[in-house]
């Protein structure tokens, strides 16, 4: 939730100027809040009681409120009681005999999400009235809510379940017939909607209309029959529809892809970074027993706020493909062991004359791997380049650069600002016979100007990749690598933010993280010991690369740090 | 009277050897058979007292159970742990079994069968032999505890030894009045002295247990001491499974354990045999002339049968008592021996001697 920021205040027109920071009491605990706080758009608006409660560490239950969405105030779950200081005729607070300010309790409760605070206000979030109100709201919500918990995907992360346990009644008084609405409605190509479960908080409507800019959803009918639906003639198919699944507090909106796949309490959630484009949205990988079930966005206000695009969200299935490269292959195609191959490769590369080696790294590799590849290239005197990937951008999150680490490749010196301009030179070099050794990491170069006949002319073709392609078929030495979910590392997004990610699943077969075997290869070549761990490698990179000066692995934290671009 | 004919002497000597070997073989076979089937009786009797059935699946009434157990004992893996002292470890079970078997030599099973006395060695000092050999079993247990080279067996073995030594003394002293009364140490003579019916009540046989209150007291003390000597409840603390982690036989498995187990039952049978011989009239019954040495084969066999029946009855007492009474705590046990039974036995001896001297004056 938003923390109190030091926002410079504009002096208001009204005569009594309220100070920029003032004290508010929440459940007897004093907390200092700013008068104005940024709202969902970032504009400064008066701080609301719910923000004051969060600042004090008190969790007020809410459904329709979301810090990144405009305030609606229709669920009434965040009703709290409050009291305001009594001001005397001289506009100074009156005092009790014992010196504390006199407080009048407001006769009515107020919704905390929409009511601004005032200096000296006291907020009570746990009085019997507040508890009774929450019970009442939940009772009303549960009147027509179906008994779907055993089959609903939201079980385990459902706010209605959680608040019903924490704040609701234990027994139901409802004996009438519930209102039945359509279930299994395909609201969009990726969204399944269940009208009975909807509590009409309107988060999905506000998100689609205000954040995405696509006014597709609305509420039809009224009273107990109110239903969310797409406006007639509009389709709910923008690239951010699956965020409504995260937003929906109950199981009304569910992902068709994740539907009935696994219960969420079984999923191990690993912090990672989406690799579908250069934005690098922060995600959580939900996996169980080395199989990935879904991606969900993590909050990072500097990169992706609370959202991620649908294309990136659904781009996890390739990690579990059965044709993943699993075995190390040596010349002639036989399966080899890592230790032998790395030693042999180091020997062979060490004998290659300077200027006869080319190295094509991928901008999908991590910073650490690119750092090691640069070291390798420098040691071998190799020509390096990377392969660009451009696509369609959109105003919200999606970047036109579909490589997650283009800036990393540039900063680490593996390619020029214009990626790919060295490729024709490399192709020419192979054709002339000047380049006899080619090292390819993570790319299918046959689709980018280096035809298979050209590759056949090489003495040594070292390829490291994840999925088989035309280049891996021609490799003399094939080193299977890991997907981003199977290793740790860091990416630099298009804005220069270095973000780290962790390992969620085990790599298949004998695949190893590239930074690991590259470090070993380099230590065979140079004779110097490899960095003992990824943290040490990152810190070493931060020291040697000027753009990353001052960064440390632990300093990256959950939100990353800016590099000096 | 052997003449100075060497051939006749040779025949007599070879006859003696053959018949002794036959008696030894027969006695040993009967002892082993009894050991096996006493276990069966114990299991079924214990079961009956405990509201359950005992072994009843192997053979009719479970009579094949001891055979099955023997087969299992032979086929089971004999584990010799690495940390034991091998020589003493392997010697101990044999040393426990040995005295029981050796003691068979002086027990009179019957009077005569044909011309052969039904006792392997009719020693004049039979009881000394019995007590002496009986003391050897202490070695077996001490070696078992020591040889196991482990805390609990050592402690269990030591406790057991202390118990055995204490009650040996009581045993020996308690039996002195009987020999004073009988006037002879020879066991066959003891049995002869119990012929007929009791002088003060002709309904009762003239067994030492009924003859006089002094010998009856000797019987009680001997009985208690016999329970203690054989490590039977209520004196079985050294091997109580519930109280200890096992005792001296913890490190043993398969055939060695079986030997300990059988040794205990063999001791029990021997104790019953001594009881029968000394106090219950041995092979005599005061009816139909069965209290005189047998002249016919039928009488001889009847005597053996009577002895065995009395033996079994004593055994049943041993088995029954196990489930009747709780066991003594170790200090209570030692207290009983040294502070109560031993003085009592000594007083009993004194009184018997005094009474006999008094009777001889009159």
């Amino acid at each position, binding site marked *: 939730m938003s923390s109190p920021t030091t926002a410079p205040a504009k002096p208001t027109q009204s005569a009594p100027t309220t100070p920029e920071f003032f004290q508010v009491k929440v459940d007897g605990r004093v907390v200092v809040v700013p008068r104005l706080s940024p709202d969902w758009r970032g504009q400064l608006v008066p701080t609301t009681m719910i923000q004051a409660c969060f600042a004090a560490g008190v969790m007020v239950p809410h459904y329709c409120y979301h810090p990144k969405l405009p305030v609606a105030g229709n669920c009434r779950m965040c009703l709290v009681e409050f009291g305001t200081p009594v001001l005397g005729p001289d506009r100074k607070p009156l005092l009790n005999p014992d010196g504390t300010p006199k407080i009048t309790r407001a006769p009515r409760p107020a919704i905390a999400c929409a009511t601004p605070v005032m200096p000296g206000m006291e907020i009570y979030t746990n009085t019997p009235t507040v508890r009774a109100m929450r019970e009442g709201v939940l009772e009303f919500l549960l009147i027509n809510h179906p008994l779907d918990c055993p089959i609903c995907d939201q079980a385990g992360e459902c706010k209605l379940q959680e608040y019903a346990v924490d704040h609701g009644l234990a027994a139901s008084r409802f004996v009438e017939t519930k209102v039945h609405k359509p279930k299994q409605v395909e609201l969009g190509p990726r969204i399944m909607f269940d009208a009975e479960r909807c509590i009409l908080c309107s988060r999905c409507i506000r998100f689609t209309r205000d954040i995405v800019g696509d006014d597709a959803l609305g509420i039809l009918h009224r009273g107990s029959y109110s239903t969310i639906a797409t406006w007639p003639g509009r389709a709910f198919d923008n690239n951010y529809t699956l965020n409504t699944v995260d937003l929906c507090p109950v199981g009304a909106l569910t992902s068709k892809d994740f539907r009935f796949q696994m219960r969420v309490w*079984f999923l191990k959630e690993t912090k990672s970074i989406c690799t579908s484009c250069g934005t690098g949205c922060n995600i959580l990988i939900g996996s169980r027993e080395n199989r990935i079930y879904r991606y969900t966005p993590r909050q990072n206000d500097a990169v992706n706020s609370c959202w991620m695009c649908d294309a990136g969200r659904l781009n996890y299935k390739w990690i579990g493909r059965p044709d993943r490269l699993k075995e190390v292959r040596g010349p002639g195609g036989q399966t080899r062991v890592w230790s032998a191959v790395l030693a042999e490769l180091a020997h062979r590369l060490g004998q290659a004359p300077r200027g006869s080696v080319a190295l094509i790294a991928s901008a999908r590799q991590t910073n650490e791997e690119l750092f090691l590849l640069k070291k390798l290239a420098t040691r071998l005197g190799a020509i390096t380049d990377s392969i660009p990937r451009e696509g369609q951008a959109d105003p919200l999150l999606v970047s036109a650069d579909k490589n997650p680490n283009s800036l990393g490749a540039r900063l680490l010196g593996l390619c020029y600002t214009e990626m790919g301009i060295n490729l024709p030179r490399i192709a020419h070099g192979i054709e002339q016979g000047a380049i006899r050794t080619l090292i390819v990491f993570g790319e299918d170069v046959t689709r980018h100007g280096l035809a298979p006949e050209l590759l056949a002319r090489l003495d040594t073709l070292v390829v490291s990749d994840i999925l088989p392609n035309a280049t891996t078929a021609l490799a003399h030495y094939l080193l299977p690598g890991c997907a981003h979910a199977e290793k740790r590392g860091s990416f630099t997004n298009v804005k220069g933010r270095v973000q780290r990610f962790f390992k969620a699943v085990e790599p298949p077969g004998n695949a190893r993280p590239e930074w690991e075997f590259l470090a070993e290869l380099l230590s065979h070549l140079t004779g110097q010991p490899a960095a003992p761990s990824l943290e040490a490698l990152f810190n070493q990179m931060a020291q040697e690369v000027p753009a990353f000066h001052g960064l440390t692995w632990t300093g990256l934290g959950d939100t990353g740090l800016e590099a000096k671009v | 009277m052997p003449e100075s004919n060497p051939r006749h002497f040779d025949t007599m000597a070879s006859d003696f050897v053959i018949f002794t070997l036959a008696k030894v073989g027969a006695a040993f076979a009967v002892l082993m058979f009894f050991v096996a089937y006493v276990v069966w009786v114990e299991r079924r009797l214990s079961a009956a007292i405990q509201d359950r059935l005992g072994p009843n699946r192997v053979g009719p009434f479970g009579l094949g159970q001891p055979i099955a157990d023997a087969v299992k004992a032979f086929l089971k893996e004999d584990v010799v742990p690495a940390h034991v002292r091998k020589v003493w470890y392997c010697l101990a079970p044999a040393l426990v079994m040995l005295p029981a078997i050796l003691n068979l030599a002086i027990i009179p099973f019957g009077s005569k069968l044909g011309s052969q006395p039904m006792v392997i060695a009719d020693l004049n000092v039979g009881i000394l032999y019995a007590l002496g050999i009986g003391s050897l079993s202490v070695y077996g247990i001490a070696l078992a505890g020591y040889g196991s080279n482990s805390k609990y067996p050592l402690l269990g073995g030591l406790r057991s030894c202390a118990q055995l030594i204490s009650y040996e003394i009581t045993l020996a002293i308690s039996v002195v009045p009987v020999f004073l009364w009988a006037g002879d140490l020879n066991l066959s003579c003891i049995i002869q002295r119990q012929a007929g019916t009791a002088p003060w009540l002709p309904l009762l046989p003239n067994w030492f247990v009924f003859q006089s209150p002094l010998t009856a007291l000797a019987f009680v003390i001997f009985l208690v001491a016999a329970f203690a000597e054989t490590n039977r409840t209520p004196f079985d603390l050294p091997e109580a499974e519930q109280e200890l982690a096992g005792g001296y036989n913890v490190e043993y498995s398969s055939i060695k354990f079986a030997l300990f187990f059988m040794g205990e039952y063999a001791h029990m049978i021997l104790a019953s045999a001594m009881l029968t011989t000394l106090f219950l009239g041995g092979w005599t019954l005061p009816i139909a002339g069965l209290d005189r040495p047998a002249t016919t084969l039928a009488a001889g066999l009847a005597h053996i049968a009577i002895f065995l029946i009395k033996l079994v009855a004593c055994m049943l007492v041993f088995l029954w008592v196990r489930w009747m009474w709780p066991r003594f705590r170790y200090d209570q046990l030692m207290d009983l021996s040294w502070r109560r039974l031993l003085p009592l036995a000594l007083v009993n001896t004194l009184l018997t001697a005094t009474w006999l001297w008094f009777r001889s004056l009159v």
Partner: protein
Amino acid sequence: MIVRRDRLTIWERLYLTAIWGGLKVTFRHFWRTVVRRRPVTVQYPEEKPVVPPGYRGAPYLVRDQTGRIKCVSCQLCEFVCPPKAIRITPPGPEIDPTTGNVEKRPRQFEIDMLRCIFCGFCQEVCPEEAIFLMQDYSLTGLSRSEMIYDMDKLLRLGGVHLDPIRKWERKAREAQAQETVPPTLP
């Protein structure tokens, strides 16, 4: 507290009362078992013990009286199972038209009977009354894989459980009734 140790009478100190008491008790039990032939032993497998109701035997899946598999693959039993004996494969996103308004049914349901500790937590936690611990205590198999019961075997052994509430059918009936009175009518 101070334990009173009463002085024993002369008979008690000679243990004579204890001896006689012991003899009486053991003889009574002996009589009961041998003469009246009433041991407590139940000679299995010829005689089988009477299993009380509520006995926790092997867990099986049940169908209701219309033949529908009651399990809806909520995976609560898989989660609560202490030794993780239950393994459920959820149905996945394809819509299965045979499930009607229940929407979800497990694709595969395995219980490893060698891991099961027969605690009954799965029965306790099941919201659909789909898994019950029945009175089957004698489970044998010739291999470990044989003892992993799959859904067919569990349903076959579980049989039918009469469901007096029939929540889903009732829901379908109510929804049908409401469709004849749609909310958009004036």
